[in-house]
């Protein structure tokens, strides 16, 4: 209960962060109203779904900026990430993933394939590890480096130091994808494909399909696909 209430009370703060970072035009008045209504909801027992997505970004929103340390020690942001050809990307496959979640592990090889397919087309995978390494030691920086070396990750593997980035995106699980276009607009969100447990049985690769749609000047459809995953391990307060 406490956790739910805590989340609810954090929601307006996160919403504020998102609003300030993406929509400077929003007035303070609007923010204050949003805060009050969310707090009111948090006190009721039966939660309605209207308040569900107060945090994070949706398809169509601007992707929150970040500047995070890669496993090679360098800092990366949308400003200096390149695709496989060394060019400014047409988009970014921002993927919240980690070492320790069995679902994330099941997708490691597919994420490598995805990068190898999409990065030459201008859409590199940018993996971000969001878990608190104090809760999940297996996700600390040294273990990220080790896992990346073992698997030969061809993509960036960034540490969400201080867990400041994933809440702005509203990510809740690993793995979870945000496909961001060149204008930094989120165009697709959610699952990588339609069968987590069996790569052989996959019939739709949602990310590749979304990239194809963007390249054809269309809206990805579906644009948001839910999947089971591990909850992101937030620092205990």
């Amino acid at each position: 209960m406490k956790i739910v209430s805590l989340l609810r009370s954090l929601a307006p703060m996160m919403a504020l962060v998102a609003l300030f970072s993406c929509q400077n035009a929003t007035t303070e008045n609007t923010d204050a109203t949003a805060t009050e209504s969310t707090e009111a909801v948090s006190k009721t027992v039966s939660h309605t779904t209207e308040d569900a997505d107060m945090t994070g970004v949706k398809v169509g929103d601007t992707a929150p900026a970040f500047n995070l340390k890669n496993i090679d020690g360098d800092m990366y942001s949308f400003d200096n990430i390149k695709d496989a050809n060394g060019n400014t990307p047409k988009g970014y496959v921002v993927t919240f993933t980690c070492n320790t979640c069995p679902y994330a592990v099941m997708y490691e090889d597919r994420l490598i394939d995805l990068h190898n397919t999409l990065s030459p087309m201008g859409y590199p995978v940018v993996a971000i590890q969001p878990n608190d390494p104090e809760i999940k030691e297996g996700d600390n920086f040294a273990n990220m480096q080790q896992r990346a070396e073992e698997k030969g990750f061809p993509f960036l593997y960034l540490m969400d130091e201080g867990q400041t980035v994933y809440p702005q995106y509203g990510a809740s699980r690993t793995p979870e994808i945000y496909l961001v276009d060149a204008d930094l607009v989120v165009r697709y969100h959610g699952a990588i494909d339609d069968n987590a447990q069996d790569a052989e049985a996959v019939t739709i690769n949602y990310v590749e399909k979304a990239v194809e749609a963007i390249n054809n000047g269309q809206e990805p459809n579906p644009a948001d696909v839910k999947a089971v995953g591990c909850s992101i391990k937030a620092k205990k307060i």
Partner: protein
Amino acid sequence: MRHLLSGLLGLTLFCTAACQSTETDQQQEGEASTPVTTVDTTPKQIMHLALTDTLPYPIVEDFDDLAPIFSRTDDKIYVINFWATWCAPCVEELPYFERLAEETNPEEVEIVMVSLDFRRDVRTKLWKFIKNRPFDLPVIALTDSKTNVWIDKVDPEWGGAIPITIVYHQDKRLFIAEQFANYEELATAVRSFQ
């Protein structure tokens, strides 16, 4: 009187379970061939789902077959938890549900643990895990891979991460998208329906 009886039954079950857990592995392996005590206590179904094979829990491949457990209209409080043996925070909070089962009357509070273990594990790893728990909670294994379809049916607010818990009584409903920090949090959530 009915409460007392079911309380006694619960106590008996608990003792049986506690005693069984101290038995050796050898005896556990022999359990299937000597079902003298388990025949009487093992339920024939979990909620509306019949047990069709040797496992003490049903394996549901289509979410629609599970869906009725979220909309019962009788007078019970239903506590439905989504978990998996691979999910560390889920396993951490299992003792709270086990304690809830001990401290509540099953005629008033019905607990169901929906496992999202991988299809390849539901007859092996999951069964082994459950066998070694001190208290038998009703489990249903859900292996429907169309997560994009059924996650929203459970709750549109749910992003797909586990654990989550739903507590409901008729039209009143609580969706808890986080691990419980302690038993009291879970007990408070259930008590708010009493």
